[in-house]
């Protein structure tokens, strides 16, 4: 599904590379967790995969399905089935949330040569998914993320994900900012999307999310590279000994 090979990334025009030869493969249906200290490059990886401007790929490759992901525009990546739930969702005043979602859905359908979703069907699906991830109906009419609480923004990301039904979901710290109950709701929403043909990359700092969304593989990213890879017990190990303990041992 996703194959990252020796990826090197710097901030555009910057000297230092942030990702320094990162290699990672995610197979269909797998859930991978990426953990790692602040500033280690997790969000950078997520943004580079989603195609945000401002980064320079200095080496390596990323294949998504059978396409060279790095050659695609952000919207083409979305149409190909990639979705990034952002660590900091953007507020867009003046654009209604439900309008935005419908626009996004139809854009992706059009790119795939499908017809627009009929209005009635869209509303039905939107209500159903909003209930699933705990987004109040009132928030659907408000402007995208505008004045949403931190937790509401995160739920809104998962709502978009549930609506767009991507093949690869990248969740960047979706758990931060969520209260305990919200964490469960959001995790249930994510789990409802688990499917043998859908893969997930879950970036998190906390074991707690991984209790709900149980990963197949856990990676530790530090200094721009994957330093350790293990099963779900690696997360528990990290929780107990911290990065220093784990990485010290690895070094």
């Amino acid at each position, binding site marked *: 599904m996703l194959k990252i090979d020796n990826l090197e990334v710097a901030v555009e025009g910057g000297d230092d590379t942030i990702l320094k030869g990162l290699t990672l493969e995610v197979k269909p249906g797998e859930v991978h967790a990426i953990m790692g200290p602040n500033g280690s490059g997790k969000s950078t990886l997520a943004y580079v995969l989603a195609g*945000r401007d401002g980064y320079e790929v200095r080496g390596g490759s990323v294949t998504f399905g059978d396409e060279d992901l790095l050659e695609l525009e952000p919207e083409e990546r979305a149409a190909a089935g990639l979705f990034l739930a*952002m660590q900091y969702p953007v507020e867009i005043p*003046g654009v209604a949330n439900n309008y935005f979602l419908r626009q996004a859905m139809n854009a992706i359908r059009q790119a795939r040569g499908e017809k627009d979703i009929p209005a009635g069907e869209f509303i039905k699906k939107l209500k159903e998914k909003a209930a699933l991830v705990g987004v109040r109906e009132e928030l659907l009419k408000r402007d995208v993320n505008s004045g949403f609480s931190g937790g509401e923004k995160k739920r809104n990301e998962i709502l978009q994900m549930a609506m767009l039904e991507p093949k690869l979901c990248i969740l960047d710290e979706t758990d931060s900012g969520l209260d305990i109950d919200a964490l469960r709701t959001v995790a249930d929403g994510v789990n409802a999307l688990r499917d043998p043909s859908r893969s997930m990359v879950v970036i998190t700092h906390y074991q707690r999310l991984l209790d709900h969304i149980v990963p197949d593989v856990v990676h530790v990213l530090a200094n721009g590279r994957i330093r350790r890879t293990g099963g779900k017990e690696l997360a528990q190990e990290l929780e107990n000994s911290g990065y220093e303990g784990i990485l010290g041992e690895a070094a």
Partner: protein
Amino acid sequence: MNAVRNHPPVQAFHDLFSAGKTGLPGGDGPLLGLRETRFARFADAGIPSQRTEAWKFTNVARHANVPMALGGHVQIGASELSAFFCGGHLARRMIFVNGHVSRDFSHVRGLPEGVSVRVLADAVDDGEVRERIAAFDDGRSFTDLNAALMQSGAVIDVADGVHVAFPLQMLFAAVGSQRAATMNHPRLLVRLGRGAKLHLIETHAALQDGSTFTNLVSQIELGDEAELIHDRLQAGRDGSVLLSKADMRLGERSRLRQTLASLGGALVRNESTLHLDGTFADAVMNGAFMPTAREHVDNAICVHHRQPDCHSDQFYKGVMDGYGRGVFAGRIVVHEDAQRTNAFQTNNNLLLSDDAEIDSKPELEIYADDVKCSHGATCGDLDEQSLFYLRSRGIDADTARSILVYAFAGEVIERFADEGTRRLAMQHVFARLAGGGGLSGMLEG
């Protein structure tokens, strides 16, 4: 007037006036004197150059000082006009094609008691109307030119206490012609009596290719406690020019809610002078303008606070693309007696190309000591993060940009009180954006 600073009008103006003056409404008698006086003054003062402060940012002579014919009667298809009908099925409307009322398509019959809507060409038989026309004398060239050459227009009077239950639309169509550039000089007189209420929709449409030059003068008077909702949509095309001058007077506790959108045309000049003549008068003026290609939109707003306890708020948003140029000159004058004035002004702008330009010039003149005044202007580009966010959800770059531009300008468009005008404005905005086709879904919801 300093004629030295201005451009002497081309000979065509003289020829046209001397040949045509007696054929114009009232030109065979009661209005001839006024027309001649004003024409002489226009000819003497000339067409303002950019050395005149009021026209500093706008080269009007380029469009105005060229040989033009006076707009005549033309046949125009019903569907071309009906595309601009606004106000819903209850609306009454008066339609002007090249400055002349179109009696076939206008519908102002059976008005309730106390509401009078007259065709200006007929109403000039009324001495009181002639006096009102003459009374507006700001000494400006285009006002004089309008007085000299006005072909028609409307006289709208609402009696004391009458609330007009339906919107009244004034639709001005400027029809281009391949043969000659044409000019039109309509005049609009609106008077609301004490406590009267009216929803006025003003629509300017440019139809067919060719150069058109419309020089509108509006005189709007709100009696004490009167309320005017004024929606104005201007939809131009390559060769169209609209100069609009509005003189508005607000009585005690009267209320003005004005929203306007300037969408297209070689040049639009939107000049409004507001006189808050009674205490507790309250005026909100919203405006959106979107010059692109080589279009030019010049907003010149002046609000005079003459009495205590009034409120005024100017809220203008500009989107400049291509080589488009926008001007916002907003002036607030708080006169000596106008204590406890609240006067605000905001002008926010988006510059979408390196060649686009905005000149935003706020001016506050305050002669009273207890006032709350503020003005602010901003200028920016589309937010990259928002663009990426939209694109990361599958929306292509052009559509994403259009969504953000509309999100910006829409804040004004949404303020149109009339749903029909709002939708028409949206259609015109979308048509002007590269990715605007993808926004049509907004018109469904």
